[in-house]
């Protein structure tokens, strides 16, 4: 079989069954089968259109051309940090304190390290490809099974068929990581499709926070990155996941995230979207055991013609679970954001507390925000609320601030950071707050 694939060189870089086989070439049988099955699902599933409720705000016909994309066939860069792009190193320098690092350049994990003490306690932080060899059973049990299986939809299937690498983080029972795990990604090849996965398993009573930052320069042609994120918190575990998206223009960033929170666990997520031309995040939080809690934060700041689409769901499966979602964004230029969120309380999930808020601040008359919060409640003893607002930085507020001597740029900066500060203030990771604040300030300064 290796021979057959080798003979197809030259066409294997497109998104096709040959690519699926090539990627899985040296993988175990079960994984090759999963990839082949996923490709089947992908081919059988029609491309979502705006007639589908979940895609009504993002017209894929206009926004994404999968046929134009190639898979990367670049060799992995070396582990020597001095050869890495400068912006990647700068981003890493800002947050040295960590329990471990992973660096991914153009889809390849080029570096992984984890605190020795933690490693001896059984913490695993490595590339998913390595984990298949080193920890096959753990990966086999969780990868694309419970959390983001191929059956989830067209893009979940495409990812499950074509993922090239990713991250596996395993925290054994009772082990608590004081410092976050930091992942930094860099993309450089225009016209390329990148597929990766994140799989985090936190065993009972363990604790971990994970920060995943992706950066690039602007791309001359559309570049697509798809990540499937599977987060599993066992009984009493505490997991915090942070994604910071700082891609250049031309990028289509897609992230499919599912969190599975077992009894008494706390599984929180934060999505920060600042870059890329198109951002699409699907977040599904499942509260599976009594006492489970998930807080979901989102923050976005758009300008020019940036497009953001957040599709979230909070599924309360077990009784006495709670979730709280707060997504806030500011939009400048002709940027646009859509938020579609649903709280689902399943039959039997009595004592559910669920909240959902989306707030938008429009900084220019050309910017636009659509917000569609929703409830679907099949239990009777629940506390749920949802709300959405779209506000404007109005002339009175501008005049008030300027009458105190602030320039228009200073006034906007103060108002935007104040508006988004409600989300930033809830972040316990100091480094992320500083970094995000700086990026927002840079964007505001460019548009003053």
């Amino acid at each position, binding site marked *: 079989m290796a021979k057959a694939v080798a003979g197809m060189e030259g066409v294997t870089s497109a998104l096709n069954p040959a690519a699926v086989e090539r990627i899985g070439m040296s993988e175990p049988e079960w994984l090759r089968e999963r990839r082949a099955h996923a490709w089947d699902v992908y081919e059988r599933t029609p491309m979502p259109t705006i007639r589908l409720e979940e895609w009504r705000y993002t017209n894929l016909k206009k926004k994404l051309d999968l046929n134009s994309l190639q898979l990367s066939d670049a060799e992995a860069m070396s582990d020597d940090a001095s050869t890495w792009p400068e912006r990647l190193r700068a981003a890493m320098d800002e947050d040295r304190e960590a329990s471990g690092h992973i660096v991914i350049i153009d889809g390849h994990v080029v570096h992984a390290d984890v605190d020795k003490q933690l490693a001896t306690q059984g913490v695993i932080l490595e590339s998913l490809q390595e984990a298949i060899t080193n920890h096959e059973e753990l990966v086999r049990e969780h990868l694309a099974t419970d959390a983001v299986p191929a059956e989830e939809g067209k893009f979940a299937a495409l990812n499950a068929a074509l993922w090239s690498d990713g991250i596996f983080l395993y925290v054994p029972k009772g082990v608590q990581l004081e410092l976050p795990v930091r992942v930094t990604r860099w993309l450089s090849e225009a016209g390329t499709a990148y597929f990766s996965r994140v799989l985090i398993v936190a065993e009972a009573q363990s604790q971990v926070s994970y920060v995943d930052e992706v950066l690039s320069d602007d791309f001359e042609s559309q570049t697509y990155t798809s990540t499937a994120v599977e987060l599993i918190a066992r009984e009493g575990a505490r997991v915090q996941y942070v994604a910071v998206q700082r891609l250049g223009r031309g990028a289509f960033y897609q992230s499919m995230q599912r969190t599975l929170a077992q009894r008494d666990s706390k599984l929180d997520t934060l999505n920060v979207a600042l870059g890329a031309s198109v951002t699409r995040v699907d977040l599904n939080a499942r509260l599976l055991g009594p006492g489970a809690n998930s807080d979901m934060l989102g923050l976005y700041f758009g300008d020019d013609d940036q497009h953001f689409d957040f599709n979230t769901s909070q599924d309360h499966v077990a009784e006495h679970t709670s979730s709280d979602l707060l997504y806030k964004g500011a939009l400048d230029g002709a940027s646009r954001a859509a938020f579609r969120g649903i709280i689902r309380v399943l039959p039997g999930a009595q004592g559910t507390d669920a909240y959902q808020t989306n707030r938008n601040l429009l900084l220019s008359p050309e910017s636009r925000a659509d917000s569609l919060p929703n409830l679907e409640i099949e239990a009777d003893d629940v506390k749920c609320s949802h709300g959405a607002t779209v506000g404007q930085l109005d002339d009175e507020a501008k*005049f008030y601030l300027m009458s*105190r001597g602030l320039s228009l740029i*200073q006034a906007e900066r*103060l108002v935007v950071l104040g508006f988004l500060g409600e989300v930033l203030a809830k972040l316990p990771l100091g480094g992320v707050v500083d970094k995000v604040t700086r990026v927002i300030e840079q964007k505001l300064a460019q548009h003053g």
Partner: protein
Amino acid sequence: MSDASILKIEGLEAKVADEDLPILTGVDLEIGKGEIHAIMGPNGSGKSTLAKVLAGHPGYEVTSGSVLFQGSNLLELEADERSQAGIFLAFQYPVEIPGVSIANFLRTAVQAHQADGEELDIFEFSDILTERMELLEMDVTFAERHVNDGFSGGEKKRNEILQMAMLKPKLAVMDETDSGLDIDALKVVASGVNTLTEEDPEMSILLITHYQRLLDHIEPDRVHVMVDGRIVRSGGPEVAHQLEAEGYRGWSEADSIADGV
């Protein structure tokens, strides 16, 4: 215009930017350094419009007349430049800025008033802020609250005076600062303003008010009556007392006495 003049308004006419209806129909007013002037008048007479025009509100358009501030043309400056030049407007309806603490807001504003390239001394700023808040009988925790967000009417007005105390303007225009205040809050505000004018005898104040009671606590040098977009009478403090007794009835343009204008 004398050297002692801080503000000189001549024949000022203004309207709402997108409408035709004139609101100011020819205001003449001169304020000397260190003087306290009051403008009184019925609702809709144009008092608040005059305040906003002086501060550079973009919603109003000046159609005629001139305004000199310290001898220079004020009307060509943007709102932020007017503030930096030394004009302060205490708002009738202060704006809520959610998520922005008073300390952060004031730090940014005071920094904007520094000379070019001069960094604000943050410790000195904190000391002054604490001292100013004591003057206005504000709790220190007030500085961490978000600007006007969820404030009572009295707290909003006190916050305006705090900003004035921190920015130390040459001319403060106070637009109905007394409205919505109970008598105790009024006394605190008035005593704050009086302390500021004692500290800086050259600071001038233009009080805009409906009521005599503020003028019992901040004594004006001159009182002007504004009706239909212009000043129809000017005089000493006795004008305010007369208005209090007689009301604004009869102050139409026809029988106005342009005393002292």
